[in-house]
């Protein structure tokens, strides 16, 4: 359980992450139940109608009028989110064949399959905005759209699989739970689905680290080393500090985004401290301490210059990740072609049968 400390106003039914996701789902239903004309009245300004729907915390749906910039922002954000899920399969996929037991292997396989599923929910949500799947795939393969920088770090040991689940998925959840209340309906619904599945991911990561940190001294050291390497990159997942974040203000006004990068980063740190204590691991930040005045932890910011370098393509694994993705896409071409040819043949045969009958 975690997260109750940062959402007192949301009155989460089950408490914790899942409670907040369920609260978002309830809010979505309630918003839908509040009566509203399904479209602007004749002569009414569509922009005023759009603003009105957003103000009332209701959802914009695919065929509604929306400002071009709102559509563009969503396409960019949802697509990059989808790409992240797809690329995110690689660092963990690296350990499937070397998982320490059959149980761990089955769990990791299921988790990586979930990531593919999350990518597909999100691509489907992006497509409702009028962009095609092929375009999105091409934008990723050409490097014209980005994915989350965290996946450009290598998974050197089995403990890294635990650290990814606990920290990377944990940070993703802190980012994504507010997105369950995003103003664009298909995105909000996809996020509700994703978040429900993510909680399994985070717990399996925590469990891996818990087992290691209570194991032999070597296993403990491995767990600590993973935390040492993944802590700051995980903090960087929330993006640049608020002062430098280019898209934030408009996204907040449109209720695509609900909290600033720095607010979410603080939530994440506050959540992790107690969890790290239970793991018996040390967060690699000598300046981490409770600030009674702010009722939050003071902490060292991640190296944003490093984040910018990784975004620009100079992280440890950027090339490897993209090469792997391109190769996988090219290697799968014959499967897509064969399936399409088979579908065409089946259609032709059923046509012939109809003609003969």
């Amino acid at each position, binding site marked *: 359980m975690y997260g109750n400390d940062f959402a007192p106003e949301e009155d989460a039914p089950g408490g914790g992450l899942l409670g907040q996701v369920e609260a978002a789902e309830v809010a979505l239903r309630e918003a839908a139940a509040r009566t509203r*004309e*399904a*479209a602007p*009245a*004749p002569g009414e300004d569509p922009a005023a109608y759009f603003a009105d729907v957003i103000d009332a915390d209701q959802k914009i749906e695919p*065929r*509604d009028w929306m400002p071009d910039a709102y559509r563009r922002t969503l396409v960019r954000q949802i697509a990059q989110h989808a790409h992240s899920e797809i690329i995110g399969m690689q660092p963990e996929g690296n350990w499937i064949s070397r998982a320490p037991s059959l149980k761990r292997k089955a769990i990791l396989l*299921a988790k990586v*399959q*979930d990531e593919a*599923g999350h990518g*597909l*929910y999100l691509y*489907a*949500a992006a*497509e409702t905005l009028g962009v*095609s*799947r*092929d375009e999105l795939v*091409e934008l990723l393969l050409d490097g014209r759209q980005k994915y989350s920088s965290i996946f450009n770090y290598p998974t050197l040991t089995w403990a890294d699989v635990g650290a990814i689940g606990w920290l990377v998925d944990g940070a993703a959840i802190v980012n994504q739970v507010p997105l369950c209340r995003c103003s664009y309906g298909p995105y909000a*619904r*996809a996020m509700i689905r994703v978040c429900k*599945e993510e909680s399994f991911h985070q717990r399996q990561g925590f469990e891996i680290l818990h087992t290691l940190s209570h194991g032999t001294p070597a296993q403990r050291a491995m767990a600590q080393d993973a935390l040492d390497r993944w802590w700051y990159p995980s903090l960087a997942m929330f993006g640049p500090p608020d002062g430098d974040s280019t898209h934030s203000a408009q996204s907040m006004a449109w209720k695509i985004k609900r909290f600033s990068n720095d607010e979410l980063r603080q939530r994440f740190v506050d959540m992790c401290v107690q969890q790290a204590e239970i793991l018996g691991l040390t967060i690699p930040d000598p300046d981490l301490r409770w600030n009674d005045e702010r009722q939050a932890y003071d902490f060292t910011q991640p190296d944003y210059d490093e984040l910018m370098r990784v975004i620009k393509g100079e992280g440890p694994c950027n090339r490897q990740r993209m090469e792997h993705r391109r*190769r996988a896409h*090219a290697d799968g*071409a014959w499967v*897509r*072609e064969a*399936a*399409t040819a*088979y*579908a065409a043949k*089946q*259609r032709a045969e059923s046509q012939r049968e109809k003609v003969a009958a």
Partner: protein
Amino acid sequence: MSAPSEPPRVPVTSPLWEVFVRARRGLSHTHVGSLHAPDAELALHNARDLYTRRQEGVSIWVVPAGAIIASSPDEKDSFFDPAADKVYRHPTFYEVPDGVDHL
């Protein structure tokens, strides 16, 4: 790895399908999302793998997205107008005198 002399492949776009899942016996099928698949059989298999990994359903429909005819939000007024002035279709329209039971 493909040799550089090979002609570039034309991307194969498989059609879009809308997916409806019946969560439990007694409930109606509900739209859960969409996916791409070359034919109906693969669309069903993909829908199972994508939308029911955690036993979310007991039955799946897949429908070619192109086969769905949707009303347009723009024509909302003229389209749904016929129902707008028939409040007498709702039981609450009628005033029931005090003392009448079972009505």
